[in-house]
């Protein structure tokens, strides 16, 4: 067994990849991509860092498993250690990533995907991987320009793509948060799965609401951004 000194030097399983794209798809929200080196299951995450001395952060893969590139979506946090630097990467630059891993996976069973903000990433990955047929996607944001991938999702999912916007209104969005949208539904299907992704408070509130409306907790799977 390693002693403390050896353990400190234990390598983290990171590989160097080359950035192929960095798009600011909304103010302070970036989608960065690199050539896919590993297969993955939609919903999985990767750890990313720019410097081996800085502990990597975890991001959901935001691309399809047939795409040639792996992408991740992130908000730039002003006081963050990683995202301000990550937002400045340009094609050709190297970053360090782990292999995709994780168990936030959807199957064939009908499901509702509920996300806020960049929490849409795993569901967009699932959508891009062709598993959206019997799924409903509910995406909550504050501003209309935060409905990332809106055109593509609207075209493919139609009425199964529900947009909730809490601070601005438009004709094709529900005015309010996702919790309000769910509260106002007369009935929620109890025999399907519910996948939640976003910040802790949203996930906890939505999970509590679903449970109070008769959804078995076993049918609810959550991924929290922390």
């Amino acid at each position, binding site marked *: 067994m*390693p002693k*403390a000194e050896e353990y400190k030097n234990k390598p983290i399983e990171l590989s160097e990849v080359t950035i192929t794209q960095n798009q600011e798809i909304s103010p302070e929200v970036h989608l960065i991509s690199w050539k896919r080196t590993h297969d993955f299951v939609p919903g999985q995450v990767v750890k990313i860092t720019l410097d081996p001395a800085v*502990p990597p952060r975890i991001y959901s893969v935001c691309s399809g498993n047939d795409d040639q590139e792996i992408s991740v979506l992130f908000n730039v946090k002003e006081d963050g250690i990683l995202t301000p630097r990550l937002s400045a990467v340009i094609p050709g630059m190297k970053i360090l990533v782990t292999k995709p891993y994780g*168990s936030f996976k959807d199957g064939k069973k009908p499901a509702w995907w509920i996300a806020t903000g960049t929490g849409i990433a795993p569901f967009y990955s699932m959508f891009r991987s062709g598993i959206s047929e019997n799924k409903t996607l509910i995406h909550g944001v504050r501003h209309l320009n935060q409905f990332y991938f809106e055109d593509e999702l609207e075209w493919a999912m139609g009425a199964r793509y529900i947009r909730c916007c809490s601070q601005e209104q438009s004709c094709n969005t529900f005015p309010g948060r996702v919790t309000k949208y769910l509260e106002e539904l007369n009935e929620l299907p109890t025999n399907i799965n519910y996948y939640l992704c976003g910040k802790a408070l949203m996930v906890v509130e939505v999970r509590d609401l679903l449970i109070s409306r008769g959804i078995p*907790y076993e049918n609810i799977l959550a991924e929290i951004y922390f």
Partner: protein
Amino acid sequence: MEALFGKTLNELTALALELGLPKFTGKQMAEWLYQKDIRSIDEMTNLSKKNRELLSSKYEFGLVDSTKVQESIDGTKKYLFPTVKGKFVETAMIPDDERKTVCVSSQVGCKMGCLFCMTGKQGFQGQLTAGEIVNQIRNIPEWHEVTNIVYMGMGEPFDNLEEVLKSLEILTSEWGFAMSPRRITVSTIGIVPGMVTFLNQSEAHLAVSMHTPFDDERQRLMPVQVAYPLAEVIREIKSWDFGRQRRVSFEYIVFKGLNDSPRHVQELCKILNGIKCRINLIRFHPIPGTPLEGTDENTLQRFKELLNDKGILTTIRASRGQDIYAACGLLSTKEMLG
């Protein structure tokens, strides 16, 4: 005004030098802050009056009083300390014969969203500073009698690693509280990078919230499982030499019909094989709206016996303070909602 309380010796020495005070003032301040019963800079009487005035013009002592105390019929006390934005953190003092254990919070609210936890329902409100963590020990009437400290209150300690490590330094240093790290346990749900840094930089005991050995069940109870699977946590622990003195334990809330079967015992034996550890079984105290139930007493005892028979040291944690919102997060949530 910035608080002195919560600063390490290095930080105190640096600020002393910055103010043009002698280097040894740092050590003097540390002893006043962490070893003596004073509450103001003016009481640091081995510092000259002029130097005390200079310090007071820039800094405050920094103790924060609790705003509420509840006492259980079993002697357990729960203190409520104010923090940011009108929010509160909870601290429990649990007496048990000669032992007095203080259970401290490390964050205001929590980001982890565990299904069985009341604190998670507050969402995440902010990080506690090292001073706010240590204040929970120093600023209770029993502080001279505290024998053990557990980081098992509100929040995930390894999601506030820097301040938690700093608080541990204050608690265990000669210039600080001079407590043995073997009397301190830090509990995590398994934030692996933080856990590894903690294992390297501290000698305190480690407790891991497991609650089930099966991935699919754990994922539904604890969303962290998606990012840091239990297998990864166990792998890291297995690769670590804990030596003779340091302890690792696994916390296991026993839920009726969910994680209390012989199948769970078998799997626990399988995944913990090779780790010298203890399992602490915990009775579930239901929180509002929970779909979970605690297991019955017979099943709990049987579960414990099965694990002990298989060679895993297993104990049942005594439930304390049930009449004073024992479950962590209940009291502060009630206070937050008015």
